[in-house]
């Protein structure tokens, strides 16, 4: 590991000033950053440790009903906050389906948004990777890519964004609050992450030195609380990234869908808001047939980027099931195996 400077600023402005220097990186929970540094994937010259900035550690109700979650709130603390879980059950479920208990205790809201792809060629510094080294090429193309993207990919990069948390967040119109040299600004989560295009190295809307200070959920996000689920198919029952996941949230009245939110995870370089599918749902009968049409709409533009055609059909089925689960109502208690297809198994005794 290369030598680096370690700075622990006392205030947000100090942090931003320190991180504006080239070669800087913020350190939050460190669960992703430290792995990347140990593997030589990133080699920052200066670490700006924000983990003890007190004002970033709060969950605040906003006037008008919204919620503001500080960037340093730990994934576990947020998921286990009873008021939060009640209002945004799909978000809590997504959080608890991610990583392991130990990692969730350390991982932060901001860090979760900014975690890098799990593409193995990105991690393997002997491989060509445009995201790691612009212009180098993409060894995932034609390689071991059964878990890569089926939506929004380009020939420059076929990686996916691995976050669970971001999937229901993007569905619920979350907004990222950013502070930088030029002050504060708000960017919707949908616009925050970028598709690769020709510049996969530009992963999000942050400029050098920009600090995520909070994530906001608008008032309307809580209106789905009675019918909101997150569903995640993975290759072991817990402690695995999604093969494909979906967040679904509905407002249903008299059998008709009055509002609908749908997003997919594990399919693209960003959490994938399925707006065309939402349009299919809106005003339609809340039925499996409608959900199937919505699933078709959501995946209409999908195409395999390698040995991953199965993910397209899998995603369709997950969309239908997630919508069915949302329709049948948010469970009274979060299941013992959050977001798992097996969450219903009677006698499931283990927290994931």
């Amino acid at each position, binding site marked *: 590991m290369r030598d680096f400077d370690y700075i622990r600023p006392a205030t947000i402005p100090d942090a931003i000033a320190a991180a504006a220097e080239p070669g800087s990186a913020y350190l939050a929970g460190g669960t992703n950053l430290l792995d990347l540094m140990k593997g030589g994937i990133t080699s920052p010259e200066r670490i700006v440790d924000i983990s003890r900035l007190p004002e970033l550690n709060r969950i605040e109700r906003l006037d008008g009903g919204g919620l503001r979650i500080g960037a340093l709130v730990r994934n576990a603390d947020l998921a286990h906050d009873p008021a939060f879980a009640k209002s945004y059950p799909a978000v809590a479920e997504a959080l608890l389906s991610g990583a392991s208990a130990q990692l969730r205790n350390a991982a932060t809201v901001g860090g979760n948004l900014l975690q890098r792809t799990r593409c193995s060629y990105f991690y393997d510094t002997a491989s060509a990777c445009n995201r790691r080294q612009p212009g180098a090429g993409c060894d995932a193309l034609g*390689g071991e890519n059964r878990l890569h993207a089926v939506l929004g990919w380009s020939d420059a990069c076929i990686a996916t964004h691995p976050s669970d948390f971001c999937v229901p967040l993007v569905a619920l119109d979350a907004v990222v609050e950013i502070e930088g040299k030029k002050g504060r600004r708000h960017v919707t989560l949908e616009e925050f992450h970028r598709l690769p295009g020709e510049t996969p190295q530009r992963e999000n809307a942050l400029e050098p030195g920009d600090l995520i200070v909070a994530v906001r959920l608008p008032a309307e996000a809580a209106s789905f609380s009675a019918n909101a689920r997150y569903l995640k198919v993975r290759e072991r*029952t817990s402690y*695995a990234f999604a093969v494909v996941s979906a967040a679904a949230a509905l407002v249903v009245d008299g059998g008709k869908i009055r509002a609908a939110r749908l997003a997919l995870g594990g399919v693209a370089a960003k959490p994938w808001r399925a707006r065309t599918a939402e349009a299919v749902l809106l005003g339609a009968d809340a039925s499996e047939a409608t959900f199937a049409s919505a699933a078709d709409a959501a995946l209409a533009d999908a195409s395999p980027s390698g040995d991953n055609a199965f993910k397209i059909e899998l995603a369709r089925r997950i969309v239908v099931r997630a919508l069915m689960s949302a329709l049948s109502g948010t469970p009274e208690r979060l299941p013992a*195996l959050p977001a798992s297809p097996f969450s219903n198994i009677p006698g499931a005794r283990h927290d994931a």
Partner: protein
Amino acid sequence: MTLELSLNQQPAHARQGSSIGQPLTRRDGFLKVTGAARYAADNHPPGMLYAVLAVSSIARGRVASLDVEAAKAHKGVVEVMTPQNRPALAADPDAKDHPFMFRLDLLQNDQVRYPNQSIAVVIAETLEAATEGAALLSPRYEVLPARVGLDGAESFVPRGVGVGGPAVQHKGDVEAGLKSAKTRIEATYETPAQYHNAMEPHAIVVAWDGDTLSIDTPSQGLAMAQGRIAGLFGIAPENVHIRSPFLGGGFGSKGMISGPQILGILAARLVGRPVKLVLRREQMYGPVGHRAPTRQTLRMGMDGEGRLTALDHHAKTTSSTFDDFFEPAADASHTLYASPAIATSHDAVRLDTGTPLFMRAPGEATGSIALESAIDEAAYACGMDPLEFRLRNYAEVEPMTGKPFSSKALRECYRQAAETFGWASRPLQPRLMRDADGFLTGWGMGTATFPAIMFQAEARAVLKADGSGVMETGAQDMGQGAWTAFAQIAADGLGLDIDQVDFRAGSSDLPNAGIAGGSGHTATAGMAIHNAGAAVIARLADLATGDEASPLYGAGNEGVLARGGRLYRRDDESRGESYAEILTRAGLTEIEGHGKGAPDPASQENYAKHAHGAVFAEVKVDPDFGQIRVTRLVGAFAAGRVINPRLVRSQYYGGMIWGVSFALHEEAITDRRSGRIQNANLAEYHVPVNADVPSVEALLVHEDDPHVNALGIKGVGEIGITGTAGAVANAVWHATGVRPRRFPIRIEDLLG
């Protein structure tokens, strides 16, 4: 607690009441959960430096350049070891004096023969400096195309497979058997490369003192490691002192000393200071052995009653380009099912990988998942219940050799496990069972088996004038509980309470305990301990029975019992005296005895010796997504005498969970072009987590074996994987109607 030991080696099963058989908790458990247990990498001799490997990122070619200057210029870096300055060795690391000597990569030249091969070692004052120094070497390579995958090179028939067994064997006429069959099946299965991921990576702390070596390193075979090191460095074995009190898992990867461990010793020699070298997780994927992938084809013929008329098992596997180890997968068909004609054969390709080596149940695990899947297919083809089919083909003698079994309680295993599981209500047809939540539910079974092997071991027993005892043997505790099980055998061997025995193990300075492998450690070192105990008690009895002042005078050795620190007259137990009294009167501070453990040649010749078991699995499969969960596992195992039921059960659990891993999770994903492994980390190299194994039950089936050894011990370390992996695969078929043909079973295989 009564303790009893006869002096005339009565068969162990005839004795009763002892330390043996008690479900003691691990004696080292407290040290481990409190962090006080000192593993190899926890050592830090004064003046110690850190060594870090630089490893190859190509699979094949040569290292054209290394920026040694840049590495040396980095603050804290003390030295860089490359082929140019690596200290001389007394033996060629590419020499192969015997089949168990595996070739090592010790910077003997600039050639690269697999990814993650060591190409240099950076030695520095800190781990960080050494790590950065290794990165600064920025190797350049001349790259040759990598040979990857089971079809990546021309295949050939290896000279031997496993530990040297013939690659091709047969009895009877398989083709005729297939021809005469009423029903036939043929099926091909693929198993992936699996890599060692013991919790503790290989680590070594080395200090040279002249020509004497002091080493802390985890080892499953201390004496072998000692001999190999002595040979490579041209020093006397007794100058090599290895401490290995605890291993954070071995599973075969620490059976032979690996290249990186030797490089740690070389690094210490080069810099003249103690050195620590610890492999990074991803560096485990190459130089420490792995389970080779296989493609196995089975053909079976059955008569009208579902009896096998022929069984043909072919396995294709891989080895490295520079050494020979061939996963003996097809040999799994030698021992389980009766058939008038059996043929097994292997072929292999040489790939640019590290040499595959022993990995828990090498050959047995890979072969078992294919054989048990094929047996399930055969049963279904005959319209028979899989258990009934297995009973119909039950082997009364070992099928390949015709030898009688030394003992075989497999029928009882089937019965107990099936009953506990509730197998009787299983429908024959697949895809018929759904649970209340709509999940496809399937039940499958597999037969488990593993040979009862013994190696060679020695032990030394001491009785002291204060009445306490010492038992010494260089045994290895890999986490399986050897510290405890051996102390139990030692206590009985010495006729003492376990707290009166100072049991010493885990060091090469102690008598050679052989290897902790092949599921033979408890039997082998256990017999050495048992015999050492008997020898020292015999000496004690000599003293007493020959001494007129003793109440045992004239009883003769045969007439004396040892129990609870006293000797008694067999014909009158009211007459006896304590060890302390006997030794004190004789004016001795201590006496000692030696014992050996080794297989008995006559019983080797006359009997087939195997442990057996039956495993039943329930899986649930999401009908839309193909995600699988093993909701229930029940295994019943008969493996001779159980020294400690608690430890034995955890061996079965661990094996069964590895079976789940084999069927559903584990796989090294290798880039088809570069040959580099893409998931060399514990986030992406999946093994089961707790949520994957919600219910695992292991039943211990009583089995007396008078032939394996005097204690009646077989072995329990590896058998659990066999049977289980196939049971899970068969349960998946029963749930879905889709026959798994490659492992691990993937979502896309079941999506339909």
